[in-house]
């Protein structure tokens, strides 16, 4: 099991690194999208899979990271990655700190509801006020660069930037997972009361996880903004929060690989279901197909795609 945890991701990373050599432009764009969403999904995995905190408002931090990237960029010059990236992550982390401090004292279903509500609050700020560009969003005139080495306007540069971010996030979370902090989070997930009885100040741990997850979502937001060169309020919508939650469940909760797998599966599924060439007339009502698919999926495969081999093996025996 240990080998699968390191070899498969390593192999995948190497394969991806060779991507621009054999993928078409369209495919590269799709893969970049999947990689960015994977970072987003991994950030939620930290919250849900590792700490057991089910948040339905995670898109807020994603959207804040994206908006800050665009808002802080100069109008007619490329912004610097060295400034924009930390700024985006810090802004997302700051909101996460505030929301976490207010919501982490609530339990169970309350927590789910209040995270949704606070995300909606952020959504309204960008949708209704002059801060964002209203419901149309705002455009980024020139994508960020990093000195002379990195220009995110270049498709290849964007690809590798996303890949590096994904590998770094994955590696970081893998380290967290096996660290003392990560073990404490796991204990909190299984039985928070027991952890408190042992002497852990669980609120602090949960807040740290929440803020960290927010920061990583901000990273994904930065990449999304740089890639699309545009942001709109829907990035903070509950649709987006629901989608990322779905991704990690689709892939398999409790595994870092699951988050990436789920992001890929969801993106490809959505792409396929809305493609006339593949499903014909049903493409116009892809939400219905998606909805039914999710229901059937969650009912039959509660462990997600990661649990598929085991499930098939059991069915065969």
């Amino acid at each position, binding site marked *: 099991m240990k080998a699968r945890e390191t070899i498969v991701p390593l192999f995948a990373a190497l394969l991806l690194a060779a991507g621009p050599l054999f993928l078409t432009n369209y495919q590269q764009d799709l893969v970049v999208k999947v990689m960015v969403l994977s970072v987003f999904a991994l950030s939620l995995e930290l919250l849900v899979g590792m700490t057991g905190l089910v948040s339905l408002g995670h898109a807020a931090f994603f959207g804040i990271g994206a908006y800050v990237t665009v808002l802080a960029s100069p109008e007619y010059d490329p912004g610097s990655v060295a400034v924009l990236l930390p700024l985006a992550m810090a802004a997302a982390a700051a909101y996460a700190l505030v929301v976490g401090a207010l919501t982490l004292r609530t339990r169970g279903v309350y927590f789910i*509801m209040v995270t949704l509500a606070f995300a909606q*609050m952020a959504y309204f700020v960008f*949708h209704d*006020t002059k801060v964002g560009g209203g419901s149309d969003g705002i455009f980024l005139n020139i994508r960020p660069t990093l000195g002379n080495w990195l220009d995110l306007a270049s498709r290849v540069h964007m690809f590798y930037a996303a890949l590096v971010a994904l590998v770094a996030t994955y590696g970081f979370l893998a380290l967290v997972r096996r660290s003392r902090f990560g073990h404490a989070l796991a204990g909190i997930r299984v039985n928070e009361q027991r952890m408190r009885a042992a002497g852990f100040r669980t609120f602090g741990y949960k807040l740290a996880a929440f803020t960290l997850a927010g920061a990583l979502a901000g990273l994904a937001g930065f990449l999304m903004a740089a890639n699309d060169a545009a942001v709109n309020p829907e990035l903070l919508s509950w649709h987006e929060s629901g989608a990322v939650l779905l991704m990690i469940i689709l892939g398999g909760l409790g595994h870092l690989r699951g988050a990436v797998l789920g992001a890929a599966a969801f993106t490809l599924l959505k792409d396929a279901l809305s493609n006339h060439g593949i499903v014909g007339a049903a493409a116009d009502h892809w939400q219905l197909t998606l909805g039914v698919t*999710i229901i059937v999926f969650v009912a039959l495969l509660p462990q997600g795609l990661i649990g598929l081999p085991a499930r098939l093996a059991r069915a065969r025996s």
Partner: protein
Amino acid sequence: MDFATFLVQCLNAVQYGLLLFLLASGLTLIFGIMGVINLAHGSFYMIGAYMAFVLAPYFAGQFLLMLLVGVVLSAIFGYVLEWAFFSYLYQREHLQQVLMTWALILVFEEVRSLAVGNDVHGVSVPAWLSGSVPLGELMTYPVYRLFASAACIVIALAMYWVVNRTRLGMMIRAGASNRDMVRGLGIDIRHLYRVVFAGGVALAALAGMIAAPMSSVYPGMGGSVLIICFVVVVIGGIGSITGALVASLLVGFVDTFGKVFFAEYSGIGIYLLMAVILVWRPEGLLSARRA
């Protein structure tokens, strides 16, 4: 602000709050008793509104009858839905419930899209409820809004009676504060759940039907009202109908007067209210569950 305007805003706040109460009470009961978080609750509101749009031509001049028919239809729908879908969710974790009901929203949206399309519609106010009453010298207030508030009050009183004076209500109250105990007492829990769920759906659909002539009937109306519903339930406390009432009115006032004084930023007013309440009382103002 002069007194007449203030009165108008107060009436608006109460009317909005009462409508929210219909929705929130259904949601809080369903969660309090069955332990299911139902993201699709907003969809029932949307279904109610579209139902009003579809049924209106057949019930011209018989608005109250249409409401009654709508309530019965949605109760039946809720009963069947509980049996076919929701009863499987009770044993599942919150996470799976969230996902399944979120997927249900997608299904409802698309079915509605296939059935009646995605256009924005209006429902006309019935003739006997149209017009306005004078308030003071310069202002008037729409009769229909007064009707909406009155209807909600009647329903609220009916709910109070059912919950506090009937056997069914006794089981509901018991279930809201201790679900396992009710099961342990051997009460036919499945039937109770089905009835409660049907009631919740009917309340939400009724709210949608009543709201239809006031606001327009549009695709996204389920989603936006759902989140506000959640805010109400969090503020009021899960499982508490009284809490839902207090919280709904509170939200109604904050939202209405927020729009008057803070225009642009009014959308975030109710969330700030929620934040304040959370700091002070994480369990909600009047939670049915005690420590």
